[in-house]
């Protein structure tokens, strides 16, 4: 829902004072939507984010606001809408500043505020808890949230050299094992490649190691497909999720080539929100109907155990 203009009453419609001259990243971002209503919302998103993060610094020594601006720019380059850029500008205000969710809804409306809240929910410091957060975030029904999360991680990877070496290793492994596959699954190949390249640089693999890793990645392609499906299956109602993942595991197993598995996975990513809507509708219209989707062992054989490669947490 687009927030009403009244919601912005009392907040300056003027462009905030920008750090640096025209041509700085935020100016380019603002220029892209300068003359539209979206442009004024975007300027206010920047103003609020800049005010909230005032005084905070990145480990690089840059003003903190440079990070959300870069994240918004990445989202912009990925062809998303200005709503997403606004949410990207504001993506850290709930976690790191005193600005509240209520204020966010009031100032920017439910659409943008909802995106920021979902990103905040996913925003966990390490791989395992990212997955836990994803698992909890059943209500994520919007791939735009994942796009913002990927852009956030991409910028963090670009500025990785400023964090302690141990964390660099951890973040790089997460980027390789979790975020690059998600990006690939969403069709954001350039993001996937850059994440993987940056991670490889940090992990210091030489050419030979990289080649053998690439070979292992090829061999584990079905595993990656499962992982991507498992992550996006958080959109489905929890009671039915396991059944569908098991079903797709069997389908993936008979697809002969990597290309076909990738196509299947991408088609499923595209269809996942629709399947989620169908299943939710069944749940809401008939009580807990989707429980019926789980196989009853006495009548239909037994439900397959969750394939081990669907287990996302920890080392696999």
């Amino acid at each position: 829902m687009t927030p009403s203009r009244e919601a912005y009453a009392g907040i300056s419609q003027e462009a905030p004072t920008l750090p640096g001259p025209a041509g700085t990243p935020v100016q380019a971002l603002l220029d892209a939507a300068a003359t539209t209503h979206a442009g004024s919302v975007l300027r206010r998103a920047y103003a609020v984010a800049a005010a909230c993060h005032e005084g905070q610094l990145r480990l690089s020594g840059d003003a903190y606001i440079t990070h959300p601006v870069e994240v918004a720019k990445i989202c912009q380059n990925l062809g998303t809408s200005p709503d997403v850029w606004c949410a990207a500008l504001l993506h850290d205000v709930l976690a790191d500043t005193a600005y509240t969710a209520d204020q966010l809804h009031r100032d920017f409306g439910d659409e943008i505020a909802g995106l920021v809240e979902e990103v905040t929910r996913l925003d966990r410091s390490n791989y395992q808890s990212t997955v836990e957060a994803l698992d909890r975030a059943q209500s994520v029904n919007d791939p735009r949230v994942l796009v913002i999360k990927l852009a956030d991680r991409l910028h963090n990877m670009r500025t990785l050299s400023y964090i302690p070496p141990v964390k660099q290793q951890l973040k790089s492994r997460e980027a390789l094992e979790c975020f690059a596959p998600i990006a690939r699954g969403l069709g954001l190949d350039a993001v996937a490649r850059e994440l993987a390249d940056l991670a490889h640089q940090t992990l210091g693999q030489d050419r030979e190691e990289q080649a053998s890793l690439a070979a292992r990645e090829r061999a584990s392609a079905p595993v990656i497909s499962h992982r991507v499906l498992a992550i996006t299956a958080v959109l489905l109602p929890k009671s039915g999720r396991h059944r569908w993942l098991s079903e797709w595991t069997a389908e993936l197993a008979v697809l002969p080539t990597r290309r076909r598995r990738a196509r299947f996975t991408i088609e499923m990513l595209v269809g996942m929100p629709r399947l989620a809507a169908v299943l939710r509708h069944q749940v809401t219209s008939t009580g807990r109907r989707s429980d019926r989707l789980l196989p009853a062992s006495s009548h239909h054989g037994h439900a397959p155990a969750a394939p081990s490669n669907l287990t996302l947490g920890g080392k696999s």
Partner: protein
Amino acid sequence: MTGPKMTLQVKQVLRSMLGEPSREWYGLELCDLTELPAGTMYPILARLEGCGWLESRWEHTTEQESAGRPLRRYYRFSRDGAETARVALALSHRPKGRLVREAGAATPRALRAPS
């Protein structure tokens, strides 16, 4: 319970399955047969199962073990499903003026995820 909205893709799936009404199918098989993408197929199967036209079961372990792959999910018409689907298909063929008939028309509104 009311039946599903008879979109082009739903009809395509039903027609294909009615070719062998008592046969069991797995999802990928129906994708290949109808040339619909997986992301379209599974929501349709969920919908048809939800309204009781189809039923599904896990493959028996004996079938699966000999093939050496994970358990498949099979779909087939429920007891009255095939007949209900036939009637619904027939009814949906009544002329409706300027109905969109082009194959591969845009996703019907009813199937779109709420935005």
